[in-house]
């Protein structure tokens, strides 16, 4: 015990005693609660042990165990406490629904993520970068446009989505428009900040090379702005997905993730709702991961890309 608490300070006698007390109190009031608590704390202990060891596998293993623990606790709670499937379905039911509905999920994925979110993301990012480049030459416009853009970005999507559906119709175009509206401002702000982020020494060096404005732009300022641009792009991946899904709540053809979530909820098919949510989470994380990979390739020189201690 002493050796363990020496190597893993989080597993000290005091903490273990505390954990045991929590399980006991929970178990006394309801044996099922005690079981759920015991499982959760055991998994947490496992994670502590794993984190203390060396090796790079733990970066993948620990969050996976955390996630699996959550799923197991969810399944146990739903079954033990007899929760109605109309309120919260068990992960096993959700998995069955996923397996049975692959064509539907795929069609929804294409409609929402590929046609709506990705199109809007690319258009919005391109517009934002171009706008930042145009703004770069005029401090006056920068000072005026950024506060106004801030205000426009504060318009709640629940209000702008119905208006954009009214303007662009029920198809994927209005969803792409909502996504453009959502990703434009974060990427713009980040790009403008990035273009300003060169040191005076670096700019002077370009002057000594007799570089024109555009040469200096493409060879110094744009590459220096890339880390900031990627910051904005990463933040915008989740915004794009959420925007496309929410826009579908307000009018859509009969395909799409937002449509499926809304209508399945209305017909009490909650397992389908959670299946779509799972697809959204996986798609969002995958999208974020792809942008992070691109960032690693293109901005390998930046301090933030060094390995963490």
């Amino acid at each position, binding site marked *: 015990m002493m050796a363990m608490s020496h190597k893993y300070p989080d597993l000290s006698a005091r903490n273990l005693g505390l954990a045991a007390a929590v399980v006991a109190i929970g178990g006394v009031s309801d044996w099922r609660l005690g079981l759920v608590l015991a499982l959760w704390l055991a998994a947490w202990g496992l994670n502590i042990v794993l984190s203390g060891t060396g090796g790079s596998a733990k970066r993948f293993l620990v969050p996976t165990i955390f996630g699996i623990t959550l799923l197991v606790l969810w399944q146990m709670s739903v079954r033990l406490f007899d929760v*109605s499937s109309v*309120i919260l379905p068990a992960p096993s039911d959700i998995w069955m629904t996923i397996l049975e509905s692959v064509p539907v999920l795929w069609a929804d994925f294409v409609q929402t993520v590929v046609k709506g979110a990705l199109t809007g993301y690319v258009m919005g990012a391109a517009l934002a970068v171009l706008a930042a480049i145009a703004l770069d030459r005029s401090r006056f416009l920068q000072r005026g446009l950024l506060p106004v853009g801030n205000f426009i970005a504060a318009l709640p999507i629940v209000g702008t989505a119905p208006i954009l559906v009214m303007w662009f119709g029920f198809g994927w175009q209005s969803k792409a428009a909502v996504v453009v509206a959502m990703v434009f401002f974060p990427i713009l702000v980040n790009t403008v900040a990035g273009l300003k982020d060169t040191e005076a020494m670096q700019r002077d060096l370009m002057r000594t090379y007799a570089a024109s404005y555009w040469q200096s732009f493409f060879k110094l300022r744009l590459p220096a702005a890339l880390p900031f641009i990627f910051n904005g792009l990463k933040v915008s991946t989740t915004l794009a997905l959420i925007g496309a899904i929410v826009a*579908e709540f307000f009018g859509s053809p009969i395909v799409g993730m937002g449509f499926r979530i809304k*209508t399945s909820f*209305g017909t009490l098919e909650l397992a389908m709702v959670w299946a779509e949510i799972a697809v959204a989470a996986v798609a969002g994380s995958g999208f974020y991961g792809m942008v992070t990979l691109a960032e690693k390739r293109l901005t390998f020189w930046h301090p933030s890309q060094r390995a963490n201690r």
Partner: protein
Amino acid sequence: MKKLMTTAMAFGLISGAAAAQDEITLQLKWVTQAQFGGYYVALANGYYEEEGLDVTINPGGPDIAPPQVLAGGGADVIVEWMPAALAARERGLPLVNIAQPFARSGMMLTCWADAGIEGPEDFPGRTLGVWFFGNEYPFLSWMSQLGISTDGGADGVEVLQQGFNVDPLLQRQADCISTMTYNEYWQVIDAGVSPDELVTFAYEDGGVATLEDGLYVDEARLEDPEFVDQMARFVRASMRGWDWAEANPEEAALIVLDYDESGAQTETHQIRMMGEVAELTAGSDGTLDEAAYQRTVDTLLAGGSDPVISEVPEGAFTHVVTEAALAN
């Protein structure tokens, strides 16, 4: 000390008196409007209080599924349409119809006359707007019976998930939209369209109508005789409210406006809605008409490849409550 004791006793007495009233929560199917006039009238005129009930009316809305609220214990009785209730029953939530104030269906499909649609046979190749969230069942059944696919293309219809307004029709994004006799149809008229520019198909006329606003409770609770008695009193007071609303539509609409917390409803709209709803509730004393129930079940079962319900429901309604309500 003496003051404290007397105050405490006074509070005790008051709460004791209040506890004599049974607390009931009613979950509506949509926002506060004259569609639920009878219940608001019963609340405002004190009919519930006279029956010893302390009723809380919770309005619904776009993201609220009343069966789910019932399952979650957030309401004792809900207003729901029969297709959605039967589908929920098949999905494992034991809803039982205890009263049916709406004897007729008010659902329609409203189309532009200049779109060249004269009858259901002209639907293929058109764009139709449909509400979802549980309201799509009558439409899907009808299309199935007509043999028209909902997947678009030349032989089927293109279906749009329309929001709860009439813009898709006015802005010509759809050739036809779903409307209710008491609500959306009049919104279209209010927007400056005259009735002869529209062609309307009422589900009631097409023989594909399904029963709409009815009162539903959880089957398990009906085993408690006290609950049955509470529901009987509730139904009795509610039907009194409906009778009064049918006789005094203008005052009933004003009562509904009083309870509207969003401040968005207008007098004209609500008075007109109350008048139209009165035509749907006319002649009903709350008892479910079994012939109408059977028609609804048949329409839903005849849904072809994708029926709303797959087997004949058993025990989906009961006359126990309405018999007790009308016995006095």
